[in-house]
């Protein structure tokens, strides 16, 4: 899969769900991309580097979201 296609799929899917939640597990992303985890990871890494996606971590678990999306950034006064 090309990066552009991956970006479109991810942005579309995550935007659709933006009203209810902004953070997703890695598995959700590989399902959206319909790829095996290892192949999905290469594209997801690139989307992080391109500042489309960003990480969120509970310390023990990591999640992904569209950059800047969600409520907590505002709550932490980090934006």
């Amino acid at each position, binding site marked *: 899969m090309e990066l552009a296609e991956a970006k479109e799929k991810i942005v579309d899917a995550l935007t659709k769900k933006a009203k*209810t939640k902004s953070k997703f597990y890695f598995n959700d992303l590989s399902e959206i991309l319909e790829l095996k985890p290892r192949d999905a990871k290469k594209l997801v890494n690139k989307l992080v580097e391109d500042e489309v996606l960003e990480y969120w971590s*509970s310390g023990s678990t990591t999640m992904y979201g569209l950059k800047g999306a969600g409520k907590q950034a505002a709550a932490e006064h980090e934006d």
Partner: protein
Amino acid sequence: MAFISSGYNPDKPMENRITDIGPRHFEEFYPEVIKKNKGKWLYHEILKPGVLVHVAESGDEVYTVRCGGARLMSVTHIREICEIADKHCDGHLRFTTRNNIEFMVDNKAKIDPLIKDLESRKFDGGSFKFPVGGTGAGITNIVHTQGWVHCHTPATDASGTVKATLDELFTDFQTMRMPAHLRISMACCLNMCGAVHCSDIAILGFHRKPPMVDHAYLDKMCEVPLAIAACPTAALKPKKIDLDGGTVNSIEVNKNRCMFCGNCYTMCPSLPLADKEGDGIVLMVGGKVSNRISAPKFSKVVVAYIPNETPRWPTMTAQIRNIVEAYAKDARKYERLGEWAERIGWERFFGKTGLEFTHHLIDDFRDPAYYTWRQTTNFKF
């Protein structure tokens, strides 16, 4: 204070970026005698509490002086450690898995000046900076978690409970009178980021009240689906709440399903659960990780709740002392605490320690519970 740039350019984060280099190579840090004799050690001996000698095939010897340390450590303190290592150990040292500091010298004559130096150093408050000990059949340093110093879900403090316990057991850090070594570990909530579940004695912080729900702010600060998904027992569900004439999206807690883990609070600060009366200490005993004689074992809960008596947790330290003394008195040489309890039977363990057995100590959590009940007529009155 003026901002000092490291050279990092926030507009171009990838510019000159160095990543994925990992830790430094361990060989850079080996003392000379270690580098030379690695893989060729013949045997070791504990010369006295806290002092080890390892003898190599080459005839070389390395003497190690082990000292306790609080794992919470300032740069001032680390620099003092460096000063000692420069003075006595050619600028080398190491830390152990259990937060001890090890100073190594290659000559017997260097031991006494080193120990003298270490023992002479005290904090202004009077405690030792570098107590020598922690070897053999004694009680070594307590590994622990962050507690109130730095964590968002602790049910107690870690550094304080550990300090209080090690003050109580200090002579056993510096002597070796136990039947076998006795490992104590501390984790400040049931999530056990400190993995204390296989310790001879585990000190565990525990909440006993489900989270409160801050309805007015929850929807502003948190995402409801994330908080709900964080609950391991499915005790949370979304709920619309009438508040000040309007309706807000919020969460309902099924309080009887709550296991007090605080995972929801991690995802959502509007679900705080800490509470002065609710929170306290659980004691677990009888775990081990070594495969020596018997297989590794999990620790078992023997005290269901002790309140947080700051700043020194006297009830907790008294209970620990009590368990340690019962074990020291009754166990056979080489027998770990859990092996002793199994040999005499847990009914005798409660008899000999005087600890009260309550219904809280009988497992009722999911599948493994059944295997802990007694399925035999063999028991002691």
